[in-house]
């Protein structure tokens, strides 16, 4: 298993060369690049100016596995065209945070369970996740309260630690171990000192995170379905759905057809439980007629239904919904109420 392999290190100055080799091996490489004031996960062509001084990317990497919009099939008139799905390109995502890798691990539970989701699985199988341990969490972060940690490995193939002059690469899956072996000439075995430095950094990061108490939240929410718990957040909520778009685990989608004359395509696109049309029946009946039911659904799904169905909270504590909500609705206040 992965634990057997000793972590590797690489001098940061050798990173562009490693990136070049990864690209030459046929992977599309995405890494942290500063664009203006912001570090984003950007495709790297060659000699990347990688920048590891960031909290987290504004957008989660959800788009790599469940694109905002993707083609299910193409058609002409009443006939489906056979060229529908092209093979996925191999990708490497370098520098996503462990919370976002954990979110992919959570989405796996939905999309890889039978019957497996063809499109998701293709992308998942062809993408290597190299997470960067989150050594300076932000004030909106609360991963340790929802089952994760700044150096958690769920979903990751390799976990990377920024040790200053060098990066430590710790394999987190057999696939990650295999990947590191392929590029072993670029790296060297980590020293004992580096390994203990890594552990210290992880502990320090975890200790900086404020823990909120979520014991029994699934049961509490299940009991609170008809309570007035939902009144305050839903009165404030505009129903804009931005929380669901930024959320790395929100995965609801719509399926629609688009045509120009008789040629067209069937698409799946991100959808949101915050919208009234989401559940509107053709008959006009809507089981979630007001924002109260819709806000409740989002919280129940993440903090109660998912625990019942998959044994995990479907929140990774990345804090994006808190940062991006236009009316400052703080999810932490609702789940601890």
């Amino acid at each position, binding site marked *: 298993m992965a634990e057997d392999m000793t972590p590797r290190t690489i001098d940061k100055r050798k990173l562009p060369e490693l990136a070049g080799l990864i690209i030459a091996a046929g992977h599309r490489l995405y890494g942290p690049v500063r664009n203006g004031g912001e570090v984003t996960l950007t495709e790297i062509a060659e000699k990347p100016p990688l920048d590891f001084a960031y909290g987290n990317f504004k957008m989660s990497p959800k788009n790599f596995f469940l694109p905002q919009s993707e083609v299910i099939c193409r058609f002409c008139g*009443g*006939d489906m065209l056979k060229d529908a799905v092209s093979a996925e390109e191999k990708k490497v995502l370098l520098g996503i945070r462990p919370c976002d890798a954990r979110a992919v691990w959570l989405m796996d539970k939905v999309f890889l369970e039978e019957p497996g989701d063809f*499109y998701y699985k293709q992308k998942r199988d062809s993408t290597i996740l190299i997470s960067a341990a989150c050594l300076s969490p932000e004030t909106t972060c609360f991963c340790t309260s929802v089952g994760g940690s700044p150096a958690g490995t769920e979903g990751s193939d390799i976990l990377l630690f920024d040790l200053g002059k060098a990066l430590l690469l710790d394999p987190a899956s057999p696939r990650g171990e295999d990947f590191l072996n392929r590029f072993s000439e670029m790296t060297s075995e980590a020293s004992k000192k580096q390994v203990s430095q890594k552990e210290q950094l992880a502990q320090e990061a975890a200790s900086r995170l404020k823990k909120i108490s979520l014991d029994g939240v699934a049961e509490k929410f299940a009991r609170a379905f*008809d309570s007035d718990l939902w009144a305050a957040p839903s009165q404030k909520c505009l129903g804009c759905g931005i929380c669901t778009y930024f959320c790395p685990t929100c995965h609801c989608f719509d399926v629609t057809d688009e045509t120009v004359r008789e040629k067209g395509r*069937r698409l799946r696109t991100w959808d949101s439980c915050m919208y009234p049309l989401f559940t509107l029946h053709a008959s006009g009946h809507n089981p979630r007629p007001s924002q109260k039911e819709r806000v409740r659904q989002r919280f129940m799904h993440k903090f109660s239904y998912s625990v019942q169905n998959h044994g995990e909270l479907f929140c990774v504590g990345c804090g994006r919904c808190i940062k991006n909500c236009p009316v400052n609705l703080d999810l932490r206040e609702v789940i601890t109420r």
Partner: protein
Amino acid sequence: MNGDGNRNPYIPFPAKIEKITIENADRDIKTFKLAFLDEGHRRAFQYLPGQFAELSIFGKGESPIGIASSPTEEGYLLFTVKKVGVVTSDLHNSEEGRVIGVRGPLGKPYPVEAMEGKNVVIIGGGFAFTTLRSTIRYLLAPENRRRIKNLTCIYGARSPGELIYKEELKEWQGSEDIEMYVTVDKGDESWTGREGFVPTVLKEVAPSSENAIALVCGPPIMLKFTFPMLLGLGFPPEMIVVSLEMRMKCGIGKCGRCNIGNLYVCKDGPVFTYQQLQSLPAEY
């Protein structure tokens, strides 16, 4: 879905509309008889009463529709569709011979094994009678009929013209294998049958709950008054089985919109026991 792990569950199978039957006086409910173009697809589509499929029209979209035929009727599928939205309207404008897509079978069927050796009571209202028609056809097949005891059905519609499957209703009313009660909310001059709401007729007929299972499908208002009536007749909640509907897209528990509590109507239902419903939030 059928256990073929490599199949892409989002891709429909092509099927030809062989026959279209107008079912009601308002002419907005039609039954489509479909046959798969591909023999392999036909064989792969193994279903039981209560399951549904996504009917697919490229350029319009998909609609989840209960399968109205019984697996004992081989070689074709029946779907009874009310004209309501974009897909169903387009489907209604079809001519025989058109090829559409079918994706399924989806969802859990009525518990046919639990009916073994039991009296079966079927209660339907409006055009939701479709998967119950499948169940009746299935149970009336000789090899299945001898496995259950009494078969009773109460079916009602708003008016005589809105009753669907009129020919079969007549056939069943004359059959000894099924005790058939047909009712309408309000009759017209030519109507000589029963008048009254389904729950009221259920009270009059008062089928015994002894060694019995009840299957219910109908509009929410009918369900609301039928459940207490069945409980009053002594049916235990786990022996009341109901089929629900919900807006759906994927049909396989991924797209996240058709849940009631932690269960998805598409994959955990659409068939639920009343006992299950009692433990779920009333959000349907």
